[in-house]
């Protein structure tokens, strides 16, 4: 069976969906991504859907699931590149993708993820230049 390739990009994983999403393919992607997040300790997942001509409730649910599972594994999911016609249709369909962060393109999505990694590092004190008490 075909699989959607997952690329490692620094601390993030990049998935570019370029084929018409088959239900089985969507489920395989969910599993593959989860395994890859655990294996690579990725902090972010970028899913580029700019080639997708539709997002129906099944694919929407897949995106929601991936975001939820990633979050549990301490990785942030950003869906990028949604076509305007797809966005209009999704909202009318009743899907808001409330649990999924979105960005207009890969670059902006990557910035979101980098910001988060940076903020976490500051929280931990890794990047804090104040002297320890």
């Amino acid at each position: 069976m075909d699989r959607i390739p997952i690329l490692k990009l620094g601390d993030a994983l990049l998935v570019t969906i370029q084929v018409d999403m088959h239900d089985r393919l969507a489920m395989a992607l969910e599993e593959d991504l989860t395994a890859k997040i655990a294996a690579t300790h990725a902090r972010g997942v970028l899913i580029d859907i700019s080639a997708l001509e539709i997002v129906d409730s099944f694919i929407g649910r897949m995106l929601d699931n991936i975001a939820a599972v990633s979050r549990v594994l301490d990785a942030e999911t950003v869906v990028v590149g949604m076509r305007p016609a797809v966005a209009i249709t999704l909202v009318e369909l009743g899907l808001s993708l409330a649990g999924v962060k979105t960005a207009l393109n890969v670059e902006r999505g990557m910035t979101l993820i980098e910001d988060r990694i940076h903020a976490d590092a500051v929280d931990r004190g890794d990047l804090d230049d104040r002297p320890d008490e």
Partner: protein
Amino acid sequence: MLTRSIGEISMTVLTSNTIEIRSGDDVVRVRQEVRSRAVESGFSLVDQTKIVTAASEIARNTLDYGEGGTLLIERLEEVGRRGVRLTFEDQGPGISDIERALTDGYTSGGGLGLGLGGAKRLANEFHIQSQPGKGTRVTIIRWK
């Protein structure tokens, strides 16, 4: 919601073709065929996307809950407008409570329960007939 019955007005069927829905691959094919017919009817990109998404939702219902079935795709023309009519038919277990099946969030499977209600919102006309034990027929029309 517009629920005028089909056939009362003069309407021409320009083309028609039937697709079997027996597997996940067929659902993908349904999307491609519906897209082509919508393009031929001069639909805008948003209208294409809406009818293809609605078709995807209903085709999956036909496959998952109706045990597979068929889709009849027709390109319509009536005075001043063109449209695409999709008729999904299955001989599955049928739906006992249609109102409930159309409610967002209701699902008998593992889905989000947006399929039928969502498809209804994406179409201009929506009809559903179902008889428990006999099957289900869903018809939608989207006009350009």
